[in-house]
């Protein structure tokens, strides 16, 4: 269980003011869950993820993973970045194997595991390609395979599909669901898209900005239905899906309006 307990973050802004980026956020990510954070730009989603990853210390509060406090980045939390961060001097295979190399796994063993992971994301034919020979969606898939390689307890993903076109995005969502289902990993996933959040999450949290807080939580099972029936259209056209979409849209707009009124 990953537990975020009353986490607050204050940044120093330029003119000696402070920015209250995260305000007493509490959240738990139990075994096997897929938690999606949703909210407008600047509501502290990346801040929350960076704190979970250990890139950013908290001002107040605590984050624990399976009982241990998080005090820095580590291989027990795999991160998929929005911008692709593949190393240009390594082949796709060696990029995926990077975490295993850090862990001291022998060359043959780590290449074999990396090949398995490339197969999982459907890129087994590109093992020897250089990163710059891949498309944006393919690079993002390599990023997912790389994050999975050291067998982390949880996958943290910051708008990984934000830069993709809607068709590739749907394919990537299905791919991610099958990765989630097959590997049984917990996933914390950030997005701007309400549809994406509803389709993927077993739990959706909606955040509002200034200060960043969680304003609504939904427990969902569309993704479980999808795993069972593999019928995306039926899910996205169902009345329940549409009703939830409108409800969340109203919450997002309302928090936006409140903020405007406050300014």
């Amino acid at each position: 269980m990953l537990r975020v307990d009353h986490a607050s973050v204050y940044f120093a802004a330029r003119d000696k003011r402070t920015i209250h980026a995260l305000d007493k956020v509490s959240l738990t990510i139990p075994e096997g869950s897929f938690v999606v954070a949703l909210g407008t730009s600047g509501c502290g989603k990346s801040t929350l993820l960076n704190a979970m990853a250990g890139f950013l210390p908290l001002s107040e509060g605590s984050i624990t993973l399976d009982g241990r406090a998080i005090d820095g980045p580590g291989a027990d939390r795999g991160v998929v970045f929005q911008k692709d961060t593949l190393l240009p001097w390594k082949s796709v295979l060696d990029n995926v194997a990077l975490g295993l190399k850090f862990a001291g796994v022998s060359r043959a063993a780590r290449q074999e595991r990396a090949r398995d992971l490339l197969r999982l994301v459907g890129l087994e034919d590109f093992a020897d390609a250089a990163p710059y020979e891949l498309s944006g969606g393919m690079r993002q898939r390599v990023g997912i395979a790389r994050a999975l390689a050291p067998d982390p307890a949880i996958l943290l993903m910051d708008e990984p599909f934000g830069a993709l076109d809607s068709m590739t995005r749907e394919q990537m969502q299905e791919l991610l669901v099958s990765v989630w289902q097959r590997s049984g990993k917990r996933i914390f996933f950030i997005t701007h898209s309400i549809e994406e959040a509803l389709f993927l999450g077993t739990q959706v949290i909606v955040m509002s900005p200034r200060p960043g807080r969680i304003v609504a939580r939904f427990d969902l099972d569309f993704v479980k239905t999808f795993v069972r029936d593999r019928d995306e259209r039926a899910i996205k056209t169902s009345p329940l899906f549409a009703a939830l979409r409108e409800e969340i849209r109203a919450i997002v707009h309302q928090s936006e309006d409140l903020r405007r009124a406050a300014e």
Partner: protein
Amino acid sequence: MTTIIAQDIVTASDPTPVPRLVKMRGFGIGEGSTVTISLVTAITLLILWWVVAQTGLVAHLFLPTPAEVVSAAAAIFQDGYANASLWEHVSASLMRIFSALVIATVLGIPIGLAMGLNRWAKGIFDTPIEFYWPLPPLAYLPLMIIWLGIGETSKITLLALAMFAPIVLSAQAGVRSLPRERVNMALSLGATRLQLFREIVLPSALPEILTGIRISLGVGWGTLVAAELIAATRGIGYMIMSASHFLATDVVFVGIAVIATCAFTFSLAMRLIERWLVPWKGKS
């Protein structure tokens, strides 16, 4: 209503055309070779030189003709100049440049990397480096002679000092331009400090370091003549200086041509090394 536009039907008898291979368009000069343009420029300059010297537009004492320079080169190649063969002059200079390069890189790369990574290293080394590197080598040449004598040590030290700064500064810049996300990525994959340095920092800084070495080689050749002002009896710089005392402009020209050839060869070698070590440069 739906319209389906039929795809071109490929029949077995179609000749398979050779596809036109394409590549991403670059910015600036792109990948087309500039060799021809450079050669034409060189030939034009030679002709211009010949015309100016031959017509007496410039007094003969100041500007020898190309033919005279060639015959001077042949004479020096055969009999040497100033009590040493041409090869002895060249090897003496190469020896100095090489020794200085080795010293400058062996000290410069680690110090530069340390300055990019560590506050203490930056604080300590910044002051002396920022103080000395804008100085012209000729300004501290007398100190070198007083402190280190007139042997090889003072010459090599002078060269090494001049070549050290560009390498330090480029290694430092290489570390500083490392994207934060790349570091976070490695840390979240479980990299230790040492692994982070070896697998991420060093390769990321490598292109800039190689550029620094190229610049420092240029600076080195530029300082050579100054270094060989110090009571040398061998060296291309020495050859040029002693020829200038006798107004032997043709020998000066030969010396310049030799230095240019050496410098060009070095820069070509560096470019090959770059292509071999950092083939990914500019590709992501």
